[in-house]
């Protein structure tokens, strides 16, 4: 197991390096710099600013300087928010993004597994078709369509919940979490239904039933674990999807999370901020995938390591 874990971990390093390299050079070839403005600065001042942010060095030197910084978890100062470092901005936005993302993840797994199992147990009945039809809706309707519609219905017309903004209480979280969780829930439900049907048709389940075990015991003790495997391996992509989705959700609901910083930073050519966010989320996804791999290997007796 340790060897397997180390092997997976070793693969994370080139991935990370590629991530940093691509992001770094992509943003450097961008036309227009962070200090372009209508009014051109006196050359001495411009020179000073560039020197301060090391923009006057050769690109290669900048690249290695940045790599060194990243290894020390220092993403440098933000170019746009003058008094902030990128670390501060991320530290500021992350708790918000994380709480919404984690809640959405939890919600979608609980709901998705529940709905999928239910549909599998009632395969080809009206209930099954109904649930899967709704799940297909959840996959098909983009969450930037659902979000405004929910705001319109629940927040504006009914006035039950705030339509956006952020405070640390549940009322501000309900709509963003639901919107974010919806497509993931739908996907998990479909995945779970398929794998549960597969498992229920296998021999060991027939044996379990033949022993006279109750249906609930069969599901809980025998079918659940193998049926969960595809769902577990979907956790990595699900996390990536939630992170991507949060960019839009944070914008629609005016939530000060990392996603909104990212879009702002991208618009303003805030090199360091954008790089910081991409790398931060990249690391997060890689770490998450790593953990998921380990859980999967631990759950699945067929994987040899």
């Amino acid at each position: 197991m340790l060897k397997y874990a180390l092997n997976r971990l070793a693969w994370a390093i080139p991935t990370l390096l590629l991530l940093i390299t691509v992001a770094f050079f992509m943003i450097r070839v961008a036309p227009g710099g962070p200090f372009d403005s209508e009014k051109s600065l006196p050359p001495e001042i411009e020179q000073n600013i560039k020197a301060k942010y090391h923009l006057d060095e050769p690109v290669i030197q900048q690249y290695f300087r940045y790599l060194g910084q990243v290894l020390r978890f220092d993403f440098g100062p933000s170019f746009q928010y003058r008094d902030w470092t990128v670390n501060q901005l991320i530290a500021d936005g992350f708790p918000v993004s994380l709480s919404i993302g984690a809640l959405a993840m939890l919600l979608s797994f609980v709901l998705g597994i529940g709905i999928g199992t239910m549909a599998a147990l009632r395969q080809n009945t009206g209930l099954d078709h109904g649930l899967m039809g709704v799940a297909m809706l959840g996959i098909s309707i983009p969450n930037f369509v659902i979000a405004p519609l929910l705001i319109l219905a629940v927040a504006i017309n009914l006035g039950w919940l705030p339509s956006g903004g952020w405070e640390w209480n549940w009322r501000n979280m309900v709509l963003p979490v639901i919107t974010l969780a919806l497509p993931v829930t739908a996907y998990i439900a479909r995945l779970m239904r398929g794998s549960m049907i597969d498992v229920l048709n296998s021999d060991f389940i027939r044996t379990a039933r033949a022993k006279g075990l109750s249906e609930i015991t069969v599901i809980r003790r025998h079918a659940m674990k193998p049926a969960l495997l595809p769902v577990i391996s979907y956790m990595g992509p699900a996390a990536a999807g939630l992170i991507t989705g949060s960019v839009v959700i944070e914008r629609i609901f005016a939530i000060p999370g990392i996603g909104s910083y990212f879009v702002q930073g991208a618009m303003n050519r805030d090199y360091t901020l954008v790089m910081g966010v991409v790398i931060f989320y990249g690391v997060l996804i890689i770490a998450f995938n790593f953990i998921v791999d380990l859980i999967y290997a631990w759950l699945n007796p067929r994987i040899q390591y």
Partner: protein
Amino acid sequence: MSKQQQPVDARTDDAFAQALEFDAVKGRSLWDDARHRLFKNRAAVVSLVTLGIIVITVIVGPWLVPWDADFTDWDNIYSPPSLSNGHYFGTDAVGRDLLVRTMEGGRISLLVGLVATLVSLVIGVAYGTIAGYFGGRIDQVMMRIVDIFYALPFMFFVILLMVVFGRNIILVFVAIGAINWLDMARIVRGQTLSLKRTEFIEAAVTCGATPFNVIRRHILPNLMGVVMVYITLTIPQVILVESFLSFLGLGVQEPMTSWGALVNDGAQDMESAAWILVFPAIFLSLTLYCLNYIGDGLRDAIDPRDQG
């Protein structure tokens, strides 16, 4: 569809069979079976018809509607849907007719869906067949690269790309296509690996066919089924990504529009003018819904493994 109804092997042998005046009993090919199964799937058929109607409306519609997409009707700004003034879907903030805008937007969304899928198809199939066919070291390295790509937050790179290189429709095609080829490459590789071990490939190799010819003449035609299923499932994903970008204001540029851009416009004004949001949203969602169902149906039809 019609092109693929004949059996794959027979197509290359058509001329040969005709020369022999070979007149076999008309059997049911795998494709006939698949079509039969697809048409028995009610959800898929309904989706197919609905999608057909949407596509035709979107393509033909703009010529039938008396308004131009960029015509501003100053007398009817923010007009709700109305029969009397001729704006059946209402107008937007500058008095442009929403019906024609929705249809024009649909053209762009569908076009992006097709072209970007084509891009991902070409990259994915080329990559997958090469990795699968040559196997060994090459395969290992190539698939490792795919693994690495999988772990990257791609949406962020696309956003970066759009920001860095400006909002350009060609770039939208390429950027979205370039991030969507990974699944295709994996699937095609797996299929190629199993095809490689079949006798007819061995025979072709023995006859001295070059790897390129083996891939082109013998492997590609047999990948058709999987690839077709995958294309139908990729198109909605791609449309979704494009509308996501347009929603963030990073996709297509005014005066061009797409469903995502229209939804974005609508979301700004939804409190006072909900129709601006609702119509494009319905078209976008319905199209994605249909495409997903068709893809599902096609997969069940072509890959009938789990038919109870």
